[in-house]
């Protein structure tokens, strides 16, 4: 911009220029300023547009995952099929597998349809059972094993519908698509429509998606993110317990005690560089060191936490050092001046003043670690079904588990479009956690912000 060329200004010796008249220079300057403002607004608008597009996509794709289609029917738990001996011996009851329960549930469905006068358009009536999820036999069996006295009675069950039926009500599955699908026929959908009309089938909120365990590839309707959430929780405990004390101790030493020389400069440069190392590098390091050399269990949240600790440390060290640096030197002088030792001045005065900054940095580091996927792939926290909640605290640390982002990745990889929907749903849950953590960080900063 050529603000410095003077030829457009009022020439010397001109008649007095009026303040009411804009000179060419002023006009150009104002125009440049207006242009710059327009660029800024355009940039912000673009950013906002992408943000809104992202939110719409996430909510649009993910919200259906929180709802699920259920079939509510009375099931007659016939003694002849489930407990032939009739003595309710738990061991004998357990011998009846899900194959034994399947016909019971199918019969109950057929009976319920007939009771409502819904026609069954199949040559073999039994084929109608595909409306139900493959998991229902197990569900009924678990209920019976937990409470054998139910045998012989007719109990109302809330059973999962199959993912195709569920997708039909969510608009994901169409009748045309079913023509190429071996799992379900269009006739099933007719029955499903009739069941909805009769009040046997309903799409409602599904808490199991949030609290439940993952399921096999063929049963997306059963899958939940709860177990991997617990895996993430245990990893975060490891990260917090290791990264916070190590990071804070390292920063205090580097910032307050270490002499300024080549070695500390080198360490400083390396810490900054570590913060920029791709997370997958930490993953392969963890695989080599923690699993292959130290023989820690594979896929365990303990190992995941260790790897994420390595990754989070630079973030915590950098933010801790920044907040230590922000404490004015006059406070240190004051403490030293009344005869406090170096350590007393740090722990009595500097550290408490830097604490909000340290906590903010730690929470942001944790949030980063919570969303990290790549290193978890390398230490094996994906690719299997995390089907059970860990059994106690030790098991939570060392038994194979998954983590939220790894679970989402796993779902997104699976072929069934029902899993695609669940991946989006998982992202909503993950984002809620991350936003909560960031909001806490912001509130902490606001609450404890100090002025000198």
């Amino acid at each position, binding site marked *: 911009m050529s603000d410095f060329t003077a030829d457009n200004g009022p020439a010397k010796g001109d008649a007095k220029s009026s303040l009411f008249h804009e000179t060419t220079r002023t006009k150009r300057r104002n125009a440049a300023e207006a242009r710059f403002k327009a660029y800024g607004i355009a940039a912000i608008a673009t950013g906002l547009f992408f943000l809104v597009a992202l939110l719409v996509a996430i909510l649009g794709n993910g919200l259906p995952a929180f709802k699920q289609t259920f079939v509510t029917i009375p099931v007659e738990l016939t003694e002849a099929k489930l407990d032939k001996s009739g003595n309710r011996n738990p061991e004998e009851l357990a011998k009846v597998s899900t194959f034994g329960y399947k016909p019971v549930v199918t019969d109950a469905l057929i009976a319920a349809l007939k009771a409502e006068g819904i026609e069954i358009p199949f040559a073999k009536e039994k084929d109608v059972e595909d409306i139900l999820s493959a998991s229902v036999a197990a569900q009924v069996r678990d209920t019976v094993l937990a409470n054998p006295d139910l045998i012989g009675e007719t109990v109302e069950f809330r059973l999962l519908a199959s993912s195709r039926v569920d997708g039909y009500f969510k608009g994901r599955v169409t009748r045309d698509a079913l023509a190429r699908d071996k799992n379900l026929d269009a006739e099933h959908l007719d029955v499903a429509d009739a069941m909805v009309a009769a009040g046997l089938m309903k799409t409602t909120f599904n808490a199991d998606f949030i609290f439940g365990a993952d399921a096999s590839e063929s049963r997306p309707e059963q899958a939940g993110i709860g177990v991997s959430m617990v895996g993430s929780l245990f990893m975060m405990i490891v990260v917090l317990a290791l990264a916070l004390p190590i990071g804070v101790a390292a920063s205090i030493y580097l910032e307050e005690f270490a002499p*300024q020389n080549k070695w500390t400069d080198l360490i400083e440069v390396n810490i900054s560089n570590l913060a920029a190392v791709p997370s997958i590098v930490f993953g392969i390091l963890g695989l080599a060191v923690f699993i292959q050399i130290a023989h820690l269990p594979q896929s365990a949240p303990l190992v995941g936490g260790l790897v994420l600790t390595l990754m989070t440390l630079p973030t915590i060290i950098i933010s801790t050092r920044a907040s230590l640096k922000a404490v004015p030197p006059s*406070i240190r002088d004051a403490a030293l001046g009344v005869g406090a030792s170096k350590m007393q001045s740090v722990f009595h005065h500097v550290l408490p003043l830097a604490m909000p900054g340290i906590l903010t940095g730690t929470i942001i580091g944790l949030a980063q670690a919570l969303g990290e996927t790549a290193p978890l792939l390398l230490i094996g926290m994906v690719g299997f079904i995390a089907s059970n909640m860990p059994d106690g605290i030790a098991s939570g640390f060392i038994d194979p588990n998954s983590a939220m982002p790894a679970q989402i990745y796993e779902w997104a990889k699976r072929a069934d479009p029902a899993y695609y929907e669940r991946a989006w749903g998982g992202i909503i849950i993950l984002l809620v956690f991350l936003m909560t953590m960031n909001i806490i960080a912001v509130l902490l900063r606001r609450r404890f912000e100090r002025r000198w």
Partner: protein
Amino acid sequence: MNDMRIVRKDVDMNDTKISAKKVQVFYGETHAIKDVDVEIKDKTVTAFIGPSGCGKSTFLRCLNRMNDTIDICRVEGNILLDGEDIYDKRVDPVQLRAKVGMVFQRPNPFPKSIYDNIAYGPRIHGLAKNKADLDEIVEKALRRGAIWDEVKDRLDAPGTGLSGGQQQRLCIARAVATEPEVLLMDEPCSALDPIATLQVEELIDELRENFSVVIVTHSMQQAARVSQKTAFFHLGNLVEYGDTEQIFTNPHDERTESYITGRIG
């Protein structure tokens, strides 16, 4: 305030409190203090004057080893406090600083309550046996700092909420709370308005009864008002040191005369 009023108070031949011999200070390659010899008397206010960058603050910070916190700073020569070399290997600077307190250029109260500001020093040095003891120490220090009447009703209020002059008197009270023998003041009034300055100067005069006070100041009038001894520093050298009255009325060195008459600096 009568500018250039020379305080005609008896300058007794007090004992020497601090004796510096051939002190050299280096900041990396820079030779900041050259060959300074000075004897600081007990129960006396000694003023260091001189133009900016002449080394007077640097020398002051040598007297309680605050320069130790600067990595590249190196001190040579001897500084004796009551005959003991404070740069001896056996000396712990923390113990030294309990004997030689310091007040800084900008008031720097801790962001804590007024009470805790004063009580911090006595606490870490274990000067109080119990809470009542500590209360007494705090009150005595605040009275000595001439700020008791202003803050006695709000000892729980944060020290940072006081006005600039009050904060500086609080810092002086904090420094005297640990019962030091020497009080170093690095331009204590440069961030204060004239009224607060007057209060602090009166306070310094009172402190003379109990402590040896060394004050660095930019203002020659202030040096003349509060001190009995004056040292003039120029370019890292101690040019002239003597009774304040003599320095201001009959300087021996040409540079001193130029400075106090306003021709240099």
